[in-house]
């Protein structure tokens, strides 16, 4: 299992995507799937940095990636404010240009790209986001 702690800053999204790609590639995921996993991880981390840690400096984000058979599990743990992706309203993808919502898109993509997204808020051990995807 790969485990890394990153400063909760947007400049480290590159490294988070690299970590996910490395583990997924070793696990035999296709390049198309790797792109999806990187995008989902990026959107998840971006939301944590932007919402859970809004205005907090020196915060950190724990990321793990684990392969189990044909399944990859990505977790992110933070100590910020609870930010439950399942509570974010799904954007209306059919709305006209003028009505399109700017928010909610990242969470929507995460949910579409992964097979399973699970969130547990915990002020003691940290909030834990778990995302799972199967190969193929």
């Amino acid at each position, binding site marked *: 299992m790969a485990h890394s702690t990153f400063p909760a800053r947007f400049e480290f*999204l*590159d490294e988070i995507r690299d970590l996910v790609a490395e583990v997924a590639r070793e696990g035999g995921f296709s390049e198309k799937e790797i792109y999806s996993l*990187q995008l989902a991880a990026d*959107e998840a981390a971006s939301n944590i*940095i932007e919402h859970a840690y809004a205005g907090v400096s020196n915060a950190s984000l724990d990321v793990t990636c684990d392969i189990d058979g044909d399944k990859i599990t990505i977790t992110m743990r933070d100590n910020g404010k609870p930010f439950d992706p399942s509570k974010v309203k799904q954007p209306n993808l059919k709305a006209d240009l003028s009505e*399109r919502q700017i928010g909610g898109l990242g969470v929507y993509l995460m949910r579409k790209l992964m097979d399973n997204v699970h969130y547990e808020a915990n002020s003691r051990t940290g909030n834990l986001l778990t995302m799972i995807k199967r190969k193929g």
Partner: protein
Amino acid sequence: MEISTQEFKHCDLIKVKGRVDSATAPDFSKALEKTNNAGKFKIIVDMTELEYMSSAGFRALLATQRNCKRYNRGELVLVGVPERIREALELAGFTELFKTFDDPIEAVGSF
């Protein structure tokens, strides 16, 4: 991420290379806004050498498209959208909001 701009008589071409994510999207937005602020609303975004774009980049495109299309003064179109990025744009329901071209010359000719 690298951005270069090229002015044509009837439109501006903004070429974005590398990766657009939450860290780099603000600079991408700035380049688009700068063009709009100069009174130019016919914009081609050339993605031929773009490797990656997250929803932060999609939001910049959406905000600019809204601004360009206001009062029918222009439009933002996309060129050379790489397959993975196109798939993500499709998932986000964005493909219907932007005309796309394979070739920059074709896009320039459309204005």
